[in-house]
């Protein structure tokens, strides 16, 4: 089996790690290959678009080991292609979310956007207890994220998520603030 897939494209996409080689012939008519991909081709009426004027075909040469299955091939604009693209994007987002959650919930370069110094939040009254619980000295920067999670800055400049602020307070609720700023929205 050839170690490449044939993908008709309307433009030259840029995929990292993948070589796309324009060809000046209709590879779907090549002996043997055409039948391989016909199982993925859309119904009558769409098939003729494969050879329409201006259509480019690219030779997709993925780096694969062994005899892994050939990816499906769909024509642009067809429902099958839209479904395939949509599912691929969703899968990519899911992977990204997992990676993002891991990074954001353990160690990240900085707390999430919108995080505030703890003394500017309703958790200010719990500042001392939280600082002891997460074991940081006086110069340690502690922030509360918009989702009420405790973040501290590490000596190397990275930040660590210590979990929900409510778990550091006996009542699970913020200890509040005192003085003129007590009722200020943050």
């Amino acid at each position, binding site marked *: 089996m050839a170690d490449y897939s044939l993908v008709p494209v309307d433009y030259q996409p840029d995929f990292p790690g993948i070589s796309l080689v324009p060809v000046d012939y209709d590879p779907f008519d090549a002996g043997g290959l055409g039948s391989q991909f016909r199982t993925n081709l859309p119904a009558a009426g769409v098939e003729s678009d494969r050879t329409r004027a201006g259509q480019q075909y690219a030779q997709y040469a993925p780096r694969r080991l062994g005899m892994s299955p050939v990816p499906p091939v769909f024509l642009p604009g067809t429902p099958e292609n839209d479904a395939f693209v949509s599912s691929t994007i969703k899968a990519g987002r899911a992977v990204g979310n997992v990676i993002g*959650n*891991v990074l954001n*919930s*353990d*160690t990240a370069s900085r707390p999430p956007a919108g995080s505030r110094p703890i*003394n500017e939040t309703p958790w*200010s*009254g*719990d*500042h*001392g*207890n939280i*600082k*002891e*619980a997460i*074991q*940081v*000295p*006086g*110069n340690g920067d502690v922030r509360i994220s918009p989702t009420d999670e405790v973040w501290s800055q*590490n000596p190397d400049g990275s930040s*660590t*998520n*210590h*979990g*929900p602020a409510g*778990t*550091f307070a006996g009542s699970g609720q913020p*200890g*509040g*603030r*005192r*003085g003129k700023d007590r009722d200020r929205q943050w």
Partner: protein
Amino acid sequence: MVTEEKAGDENRMLRYKIRVLIKHPNIDPARITGVLGLNPSVTATAGGARKTPTGRLLPGVHKVSAWTHSYTVRGHRHFFSRIEETITKLESHKAFLAEISDGDGVIYLIVDLLGKTNIGDVLSWQAMMRLSALHINLSIEVFPDS
């Protein structure tokens, strides 16, 4: 003139916390407890599971070991006197503290000043020398809303 009743109220509002915090790349916190003979309020072991105070598991593991001993003092103004008492306790373990410091560990003696009541004290140069000899960093922080 300050009445006795008002002075009593202010005394009751005087609060501070003394914390001994030790951080080290990989020491077993139980060893610190055993050597210093002080009960920790919080510990963490490098490579160990991370948990919230309520026991909920957090992603990742502790990057370093950490050990904290703390106690709160009420109605007493001169917080550096408690610092000096703590120095005296730690001086008998000077070799162990040097081992921690030499092993890329950091030792803090922390005063947390709680509340908005006026409080102040003086740390003598002699006490500072004793801290320095033990490679202990002094940390002071105010928590006005606590």
